[in-house]
């Protein structure tokens, strides 16, 4: 059982137990309280069985006569009765703490939260910051920015199958069900980037459907949002200009939007600010030139079965396309 401590100490983060927000913290508190209670219970029961075994053990072989003397049973009845009562009380305690924690976690609410709409697709996350004015609506993919310390409500929906939105450092998970839209509140108090992943089996690339939550200061968040609202800049170099032409004349334009160009398809993630993201392909690859090249040429190698087809591009076209995509800050 010392193995437990060794295993727990291996490098890596127990994200559930490293909360970055109040809800995660409440759940973590509940986890530890319940864990210690259950550990005590386990140890007591194990000791009970071990002691019972030792006490009653006989090395005698063969078939022994049946014990007819049941005098110990009356005392045992009391002990069992007390044990059952203690069990019931313990369970009530757990129930009580659960309901309290649940209320605290669900109780996060605000009069003017940041509203984010998350729509699950196979196998990426469409992230929209809705606004009554369409030109103030941010549409991005897989990366959610929010300011620290402010309540955020996520309106969930799914475009196809059931997904589940889960950032363990922040809060529990909420399923994205087609036909249902539920409001899921969260708040992050510590700045940083927090990994999230789809937690409901959704098909071939469920394993590679990640997202990240970037919690930053109010100013940084506002700056990010301003930037995201801008359309794509005009290409500054002839290479980038040719790259945009490649984008618009090949398969890319059939699936992706780049605001500021003619590309307006909603089938795949919005790429208007692709270069501002930390990772691509739903948190599968780092957003570097090489990874992007590999992804564009053969996404089926990296995420077999996902909905992006291989693109056979001439090397010059690919280079220019990458140059253009790098300008999409």
């Amino acid at each position, binding site marked *: 059982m010392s193995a437990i401590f060794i*295993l*727990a100490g*291996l490098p*890596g983060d*127990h994200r*559930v*137990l490293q909360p970055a927000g109040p809800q995660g913290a409440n*759940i973590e508190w509940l*986890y530890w309280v319940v*864990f210690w209670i*259950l550990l005590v219970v*386990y140890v007591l*029961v*194990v000791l*009970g*069985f071990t002691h*019972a*075994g030792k006490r*009653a053990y*006989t090395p*005698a*072989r063969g*078939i*022994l006569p*049946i*014990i007819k003397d049941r005098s110990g*049973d009356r005392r045992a009845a009391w*002990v*069992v009765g007390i*044990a*059952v009562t203690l*069990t019931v009380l313990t369970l009530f305690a757990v*129930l009580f703490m*659960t*309901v309290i924690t*649940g209320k605290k*976690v*669900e109780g996060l609410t605000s009069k003017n939260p940041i509203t984010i709409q998350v729509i699950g697709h196979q196998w990426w996350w469409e992230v929209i910051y809705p606004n009554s004015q369409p030109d103030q609506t941010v549409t991005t993919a897989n990366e959610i920015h929010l300011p620290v310390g402010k309540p955020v409500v996520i309106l969930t929906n799914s475009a196809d*199958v*059931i997904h*589940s939105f889960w950032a363990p450092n922040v809060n*529990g*998970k909420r*399923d994205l*069900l*087609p*036909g*249902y839209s*539920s409001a899921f509140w969260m708040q992050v108090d510590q700045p940083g980037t927090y*990994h999230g*992943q789809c*937690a*409901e*089996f*959704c*098909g*071939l*690339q469920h*394993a590679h459907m990640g997202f990240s939550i970037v919690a930053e200061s109010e100013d940084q968040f506002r700056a990010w949002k301003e930037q995201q609202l801008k359309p794509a800049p005009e290409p500054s170099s002839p290479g980038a200009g040719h790259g945009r032409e490649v984008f618009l004349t090949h398969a890319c334009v059939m699936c992706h939007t780049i605001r500021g160009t003619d590309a307006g398809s909603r089938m795949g993630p919005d790429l208007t600010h692709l270069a501002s993201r930390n990772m691509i392909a739903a948190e*599968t690859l780092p957003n570097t030139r090489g990874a992007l090249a590999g992804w564009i040429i053969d996404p089926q190698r990296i995420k077999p079965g996902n909905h992006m087809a291989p693109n056979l591009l001439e090397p010059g076209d690919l280079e220019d396309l990458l140059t253009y995509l790098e300008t999409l800050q």
Partner: protein
Amino acid sequence: MAISEPIIAAPAHRDQQLSRTWGQPPGFWGWFKNVHHTAIGIRYMVTSFIFFLLGGVLAGILRWQLARPENNAVGPDLYNQIFTVHGSTMIFLFAVPMMFQGFGVYLVPLICGARNIAFPRLNAFSYYIYLVGGLLLWGGLLLNTGADAGWFSYVPLSGPEFTAGKRSDIWAQMITFTEVSALAVAICIATTILRHRAPGMTLNRMPIILWEKLTIAIAVIFAMPAVMVVSSMLLMDRTINTQFFNPSVGGDVLLYQHLFWFFGHPEVYIIFLPGTAIISTLVPVFSRRHIFGYVPIVTSVVATGFLGFSVWVHHMFATGLPQMSESFFTAASLMIVIPTATQFYCWMATIWHGRLQFKLPMLWVFGFFFVFLIGGLSGVMLASVPLDWQVHDTFFIVAHFHYVLIGGALFPMFAGLYFWIPKFTGRMMDDHLGRIHFWLFFVGFNLTFFTMHFLGLRGMPRRVYTYTPEMHWGTLNLLSSVGVLFMTAGVLVFLVNFFRSKRYGKLAGADPWGAGTLEWATSSPPPAYNFLELPTVNGREALWDAEPNQPIVGGIREDIPEMLVTNSLDSEPQYKEEMPGPSIWPFLTSIAVSIAFIWSIFSPWGIAYGAIPVTIALIGWLWPRGKSPTPRYDNPRMEKSWNG
């Protein structure tokens, strides 16, 4: 003749007569006509164990793929089929058929003191149907049509838009086959327990294993229809344009989850309660005393079966249902811990005040105590909604359910196998090899599944075919995969032990353990007619509580398959009934039903046209038999007693 003495040698002419009446008819077709419960029970146990091995092989492949980050041993499509078929095999083709159907069909009539199970032809039919269902699922896997949407096959992923081909349809019909089989066995077992118990075995004296089988039978009767309905709805959505789960026209994806889990949660108790019954049977034998707390344990068993129907939403806590209703299910899920805890304390008290002989089955019983308890306690964590919100659908859940299913069913199963295989085969298993098996399996199991708790807490979701190295999940996954090697070694040791002892093991005799229930009152293996003299019962452990001159049942004919029917509560004899003898109709009906169900996967007309052979087969099955003529005997006194 007192039943407290083992009956080994029966007078030759009676043995011959009874064997002719109750045994398997000769010839090749005799195997297909056999309706005796011991034969069917052995078939269930062997077949389900083979499926266990196959499911284990799949698990090995899964762990191999997950041992390293970004491994490419198995691609996502095959991985999805493998984990789906692994889960479906273990639950539908192994756990229920072994724990409930296998042990139940074999042991229940013996423990009741009867010659056969009620509705013997229905029982035989249930086995063939189960076999076809298993072959259907595995045939699918081997032909790239394996179900691939998870063992619970949620819509819309398994629905018409997102799963092309016949994969989900094969899954749905496999469900139909296995659930019809379980329902049939439930009816047989419930009737046997209620109406065919030995005289004197009042409800208050019924062995706990019979209480458990009765509870499970009723749970099956209420739960299985839910999954049959939901799998049929899925099949209909996929083949005949119904819209049950299409939200845009009024359908609902959550409907699927509610219906499925209304079955799914009782299902896991259908798997777990037989485990507890095995424990309740073995602990008294190896503590050399009656079980402590018979009434609390029986109440707990029945309560668990009942409460199992009230907790299904705890599988859906993350769906965004109203918090008030989710809290209700937290309360119910915590409440269901109480009966199980009661059973634990009663077992502890039994051992405490007994004389513990730590024979091989008892080693597995203690393994159950230590392993299941971890799973049960992690279940308490999961009952709590906020905690479940974090760890639902992660490897924490995988760890939890393997601890409760392997700890709660597999460890008792091995305990039961080591305990009862001497009865099935007549020879003892090797003790030393059995202990090696235990320790290999125990170490491997904990290594594989304990690490998964940490993986869940680290954020690793379920059903992923790979993960990136940046997650730092690699070491734990590797350790987890190494554990599989130990478990495999343990199971191989068991197989070696089994085959060797079948040939060379020490002869067991009627009652090698000094146990108290009625299956030990006859030879090992039992003859085709179970008991030469039908016993009566005087207490909760029939053999221990028997009077020196415990009466036997007389007046039952031996030239036709006749059984005594008794009252449900007091087991007073009521009348004698002629049971159906060996018959080919269960097999033929199973073929007809299989044709209809399999055809319906490919065309809805399968049900319509397939109904024709089914009708013909059922007509053959149900064709009335006349009553057998009363025999004439030279001895007038005999004749009077037979006809009196």
